[in-house]
């Protein structure tokens, strides 16, 4: 439910922003103040979001001014965090603004709770409003993607990876492309490999015709490919910018091409491996270790022997094409009808 999740999402976004912008010169106390600032903004943000949704539904003119106001508060918070202020002044201003935000959020909660209660509709109308309702294939993949058991370890590893890059990127810039490759590996290993297993008996739905089989594989490939490429590009751009990377059209297109090559190879490999082990019933621990080992080897090849990587990538893509062009003749017992 978006109402319940939004404060946490805002808090996570805030922490990530903080991680990107806080310089090492910040003390623990200052970092704590910034976190307080972020959390109070998250509280305020969620109540404003509820009010905005209600206003937008009733087409009230005040919706725009409230949206602008909340953006202005965000700008103020970011300025407090980023402007070169004296630590004492930054601390005092942060305390004042955080207190104001908490007070306003508390007052706003009185007005928005009735709206929130009326906006929490019964199951049927909530689903009606689901924006992905017209794209059930995509909605299904997003559901698998956001399940806690996969999401939680991924977020933890993601945060650790970003923290590691934060401390080492300036001294060893090579960490950045390796980090991007590791991100693509994470996406592939956690989500893509298990995506066939996640389907369970649903896999039988896609074997009714060749078109259905094509649709399934295309949807998975494009969806996870888009996530991998975006993660890789954003990671590289953000960290390269941090160590004063000069942007040129050539370097950006090279980055896009590399991300595309790496992600397409990983996604094809993961889908192939996932399908292969699904036909055996499950992905056992040794199989999982083998997949991870192969992926590390792929990262190594991509970093150290690009030509060899290209050969391996072509072989993997051909393997994926073979899987794509025919409906599989046999599925394991637990996944068949």
């Amino acid at each position, binding site marked *: 439910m978006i109402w319940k999740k939004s404060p946490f999402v805002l808090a996570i976004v805030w922490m990530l922003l903080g991680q990107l912008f806080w310089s090492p010169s910040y003390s623990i106390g200052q970092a704590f103040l910034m976190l307080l600032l972020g959390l109070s903004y998250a509280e305020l943000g969620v109540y404003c979001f509820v009010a905005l949704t209600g206003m937008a539904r009733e087409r009230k003119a005040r919706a725009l001014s409230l949206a602008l106001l909340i953006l202005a508060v965000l700008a103020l918070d970011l300025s407090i965090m980023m402007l070169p202020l004296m630590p004492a002044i930054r601390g005092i201003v942060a305390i004042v603004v955080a207190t104001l935000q908490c007070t306003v959020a508390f007052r706003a909660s009185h007005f928005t709770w009735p709206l929130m209660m009326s906006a929490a509709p019964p199951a*049927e109308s909530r689903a009606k409003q689901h924006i992905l*309702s017209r794209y059930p294939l995509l909605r299904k993949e997003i559901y698998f993607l956001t399940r806690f058991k996969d999401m939680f370890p991924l977020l933890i590893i993601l945060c650790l990876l970003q923290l590691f890059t934060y401390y080492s990127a300036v001294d060893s810039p090579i960490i950045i492309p390796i980090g991007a490759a590791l991100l693509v590996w994470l996406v592939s290993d956690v989500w893509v490999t298990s995506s066939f297993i996640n389907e369970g008996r649903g896999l039988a739905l896609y074997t*009714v015709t060749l078109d259905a089989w094509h649709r399934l594989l295309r949807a998975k490939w494009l969806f996870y490919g888009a996530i991998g490429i975006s993660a890789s590009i954003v990671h590289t751009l953000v960290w390269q910018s941090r160590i004063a990377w000069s942007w040129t059209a050539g370097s950006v297109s090279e980055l896009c091409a590399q991300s595309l090559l790496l992600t397409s190879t990983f996604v094809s490999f993961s889908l192939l491996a996932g399908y292969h082990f699904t036909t055996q019933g499950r992905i056992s621990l040794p199989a999982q270790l083998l997949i991870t080992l192969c992926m590390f080897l792929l990262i190594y090849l991509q970093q150290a022997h690009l030509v060899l990587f290209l050969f391996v990538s072509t072989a993997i893509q051909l393997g994926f094409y073979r899987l794509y062009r025919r409906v599989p003749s046999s599925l394991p017992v637990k996944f068949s009808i």
Partner: protein
Amino acid sequence: MEKNIALSLQLKQVSYAYGGKRILHNIDWTLQGGEITVLLGPNGAGKTTLLHLLAGMKPTQQGSILLNQQVVHWQDQQYKKRIGYMMEFPFQYPFLTVIEIMRLIGQLRNVSPDQLEESIQYWLKHFLLESYSNYPIGTLSQGTARRVALASQLLHEPDILLLDEPTNGLDPDQVMIVRDTLQQYCSRGALILLSTHIIGLAEKLSHQAAILRNGRLVYAGKSAEDLESLYVASK
């Protein structure tokens, strides 16, 4: 769907075995378009296997299946496009809503978007599912989920409809809706084959009947008013 009385589906000497155990023995049988055929038989008689073979979910090990006198390969996509198959335990993602699962199945069957929306609305109304359209499948009763499964298989207007125990878990009102739907659909020329344990339903619904025992077709012919005695006599 075009009226297609000339449609015929034929099984010629079809046999099938799992491991060493023979499930179907030399089945010779012809089904006609515009008729509802009921397949009766005790549990384990081979009814579901026979439906799987007809739906192209498995290859025949011996014998062949012919559509309008032409042999069809079990993975023939043109043949599969003409089939709607409701399984005994139909799979539906529990987190998708009724309308979403219908959209998914319609999209997988390549129904054009406009036609799909129209068709979904038609079948939702027909099966009295309109009020459930935005409920997740996992929250529905077994009977309602079964009606959704049947409606989903009609979206692409198949001319061969295979139904494995379609009335399991349905209350008498729902059974009547399904019965009327099948009769109406059949009158448009479709070939309908359903397996059931409910002899009363079979008597009221079917034009043809078949009894399968231990993998052998012991009766195939006109449906009788007293199917029960025929069934008992076939032991």
